[in-house]
């Protein structure tokens, strides 16, 4: 009996392929549509409300007043700081990820490849908080890094770095450099993996063809390998950029006490009780990412897909 019913169901799916598609897609679409898109819409709506300065109550009249708030110097600094940090982290992870990904894609075989995946993924298996606190200890004034730098007699270099205005500080753990290093460490795997996957898809014979046509190694890299790996860099940069834009833990634990967007959202929706401003802050990364993707598309970054 069960088989007969199974057969009938299977027959139905064969005759009406759309039914099967609907069965598969409706639950996730409901989830995405209602929970995800719905809450995004609610967020967007909130950002068009404002807060009454005397009573502290939310005024449910649609207005752009809250967005104007964002451009006040104190708030705009937060946006600028976060965007610059996200850009720096993205560029640095692309630079560091490329050689690693290139090695893994073109040279590593068998055991070395397994080791590569393990080494890249392993940090993702441990708690994010543990890693961040570990880094705080590593970067602290009494931490292992200062100790090691002293040990090799290079403390003059460290002090010189720390004395750079704005990004320096008392110690690495309370400077922008420290925040940058931790961001870079935490998000690097999200850059390495897509770049590696993209490089993996560059066929060996295209490299040979370039070689055959007279290109030097550097030219093959520039005209064939990098353009074909570009979608991987874009995918990776979407991760590193948006993850940095939205993070509110790392800058709180490691770095100068100045706020990032995530912290501003956290503070405004919590203690300050200014939900509209928190929502407006939360819209900023969405707008920046939208603009970034639009630019990437215009530059032809997805043509090789």
């Amino acid at each position, binding site marked *: 009996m069960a088989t007969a019913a199974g057969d009938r169901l299977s027959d139905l799916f064969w005759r009406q392929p759309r039914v099967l598609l609907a069965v598969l897609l409706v639950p996730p679409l409901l989830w995405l549509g209602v929970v995800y898109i719905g809450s995004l819409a609610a967020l967007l709506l909130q950002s068009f409300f404002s807060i009454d300065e005397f009573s502290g109550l939310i005024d449910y009249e649609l207005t752009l007043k809250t967005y104007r708030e964002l451009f006040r110097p104190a708030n705009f600094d937060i946006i600028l700081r976060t965007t610059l940090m996200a850009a720096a982290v993205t560029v640095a992870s692309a630079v560091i990820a490329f050689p690693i990904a290139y090695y893994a894609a073109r040279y590593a075989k068998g055991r070395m490849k397994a080791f590569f995946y393990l080494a890249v993924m392993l940090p993702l298996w441990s708690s994010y908080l543990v890693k961040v606190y570990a880094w705080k200890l590593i970067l602290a004034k009494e931490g292992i890094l200062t100790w090691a730098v002293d040990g090799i007699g290079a403390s003059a270099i460290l002090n010189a770095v720390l004395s750079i205005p704005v990004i320096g500080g008392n110690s690495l753990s309370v400077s922008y450099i420290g925040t940058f290093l931790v961001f870079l460490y935490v998000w690097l795997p999200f850059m390495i993996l897509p770049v590696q996957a993209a490089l993996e898809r560059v066929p060996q*014979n295209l490299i040979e063809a*370039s070689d*055959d*046509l007279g290109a030097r190694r550097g030219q093959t890299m520039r005209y064939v390998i990098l353009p*074909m790996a570009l979608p991987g860099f874009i995918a990776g940069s979407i991760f590193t950029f948006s993850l940095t834009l939205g993070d509110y833990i790392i800058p709180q634990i490691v770095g100068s006490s100045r706020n990032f967007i995530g912290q501003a959202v956290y503070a405004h929706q919590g203690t300050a009780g200014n939900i509209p401003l928190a929502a407006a802050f939360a819209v900023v990364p969405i707008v920046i990412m939208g603009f970034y993707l639009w630019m990437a598309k215009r530059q032809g970054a997805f043509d090789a897909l």
Partner: protein
Amino acid sequence: MTDAVAFDHVSRHFGSIRAVDDVSISIAEGSFFAMLGPSGSGKTTCLRLISGFERPTSGRVLIFGEDSGAVPPNRRPVNTVFQDYALFPHLDVRDNVAYGLMVRGEEKARRHAAAEEMLSLVKLDAFGDRKPGQLSGGQRQRVALARALVNRPKVLLLDEPLGALDLKLREAMQDELKALQRSLGITFVFVTHDQGEALSMADRVAVFNEGRIVQVGTPEEIYQRPRTRFVADFVGSANVLSPDICVRAGAGSGWASLRAEAVRLVPPGEGVVQGTVASRRYLGAVSRVHVDIGDAVIAADLAAGTPLPEPGATVGLTWDATALHRMEEA
């Protein structure tokens, strides 16, 4: 005259596998040279030794008299049409063709003009703006050809260039390649496993087996006078006669080859050997009849219009003594 390419006792081993084993050949300038053999016979490795993607384990590869041992692929005066064309998917057809000129520092207007000229030579004038993904197999093949030829190589290497095309296109491209080679005067070295292609296009053919060259010669020589059983088997529809049969046919001992079209059917009891018809196949201009003579099967091609014997019929077979070609080697 110096040879365009010469192999001087070249071997290429991969671990214990001898992909190319003590090969010596010379390829004359301006010729159309085919390397023919089954897959794994070492012909593609030989091509890669010329292009520089493989380096000989021992021996020397000379290109226009110069030892190419220390010359990397990008500085050799040769270009390759790759088996699967290896077009750059992110560049349009024009930039694909102009690639070799670009990396040499040719300015944009001039390299694009040269690319357009080459594209019109391969009859793809209007396709410069397309991406390789928008082309058919035959068109991609032409782009690959144009991309190699635009660099004016002294030797053009073609690795199974027609393998991915359907029969009709393949025949058309054979004629075109041959005409192109004649008009440009460039040495073409061509790798194929298709004996028909090798025989119809090349001036000279080298037959490869297990990393060695078994025979080098003109298509006629290879076809009419195969040197070994392997060549007779691989190159075409020759019957290979064992020493036993040769003795029975009164042709002395030793292996011999016999073209199917030289075999004639005669009434039973007459002719050189007797047998029964095992099968017959209609091939258009001829019909092929397989006759079982006990310890071997002999193929005979009968011209259209000749009455065909029924399978199972007893027949005699005969041929002119001159049609029998004694092979040097088993």
